[in-house]
């Protein structure tokens, strides 16, 4: 899937994946897509809730070999 920016948050524990995601989102324009890679198993529910609260669109997510990847389209 296309991404305008990729954030590698692998190996970071909560709350850092979300803290870094929030910062990375500030750097992209409305309508652009951020790809977030994390190994924190709690990230899925938190990123989903965070994106929803901020009005961003969680377009897709995958899990492979313990790495969770999310594509979030900025509001």
């Amino acid at each position: 899937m296309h991404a305008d920016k990729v954030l590698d948050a692998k190996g970071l524990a909560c709350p850092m994946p979300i803290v870094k995601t929030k910062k990375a989102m500030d750097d992209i324009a409305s309508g652009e897509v951020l790809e977030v890679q994390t190994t924190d198993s709690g990230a899925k529910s938190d990123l989903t809730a965070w994106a929803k609260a901020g009005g961003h669109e969680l377009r897709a997510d995958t899990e492979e070999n313990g790495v969770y990847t999310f594509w979030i389209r900025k509001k």
Partner: protein
Amino acid sequence: MTVKAMNASELSKKVINKEPLFILDVRNEDAFTDWKVDGENFSYLNVPYFDLIDGVEDILDDVPQDRDVLVVCAKEGSSIMVAELLSEAGRDVSYLEGGMKTWSEHLEPVKVGDLDNGGEIYQFVRLGKGCLSYMIVSGDEGAMIDPLRLVDQYDAFAKKLGIKVLHMFDTHLHADHISGGRRLAESTGGTYYLPPKDADEVTFSFEPLEDGKVVTFGGADVTVRAVYTPGHTIGSTSLIVNETYLFTGDILFLDSIGRPDLAGKAEDWVSDLRESLYVRYKEMDQDLLVMPAHFAKLSELDEKGRVLARLGDLYKVNTGLQVEDEDEFRRLVSENLPPQPNSYQEIRKTNMGKISPDPAEETEMEIGPNRCAVS
């Protein structure tokens, strides 16, 4: 202001002593709605940590300064972040060490009482999930009833008492938590007892816990007697210790009764459940002290944190024991049941030895509230 850690044992004492506490839960809303740290005098504010990354100014007015404040999250990391932000704003707050994960696994040991011939009974209260398990001490030997997978906590307690735990009893094949019975027996060289009617699919060897079986152990000659009381599962068996204490497993709780549907046989087992509750228990000595495998509400804990009641008294107050009409009883235990416990089928398979999840998966399987009662 410095940020302090509060551990699960300290928090348990606040729950048991009904102390006031303000909990700022920074998990997301779904997680908080599903399950939180309950306390009779606790008050709550739920704001997800991701709404506080830029600062806590917006919630300062909602965080009281006249009582202790505890910040709680799933695993600890986010609560430390928020606690530090509050501290920078001049507030004196604590965070919960290990978060809800540790809270869900913490066992608070409470002494129930002494047995007349020198033995002792301890109840392990899992406040985060409502599970109750028991250690019975006789001389330098111990027995356990419905032990959880959290065997390190039992090992540490047994070591402190200077005893060896050699007899592990499960009143039934559990669906809400992973049993520690087999692992404890393997580590101490002891015996694991399980009702054979629940064990058709079990993949390991065990000692059958059959109706009428008597096990006497230790220097104080403590006697454990099995009485077959099916209904929650087809094998559910109660245990009577020294003809004084009645361990009811998931058949009879203080406020409610067991549900018959967690092994997929609600209709078949309703009449068994009724027979156990309305006939077999009624024939027993009504002075027996009932100790169940779960509690549902904190009001069931007495001032010492114990959960127990006289059998005869439960026939007066327990809502599940007041239903004279059989059809009405059938409806009570088979309709409008609460959701089934999280991952209950995987938990049953684990307790049968069919699957062997790793510790992180086991934790995940047991997350969430307990739902073994009909209401």
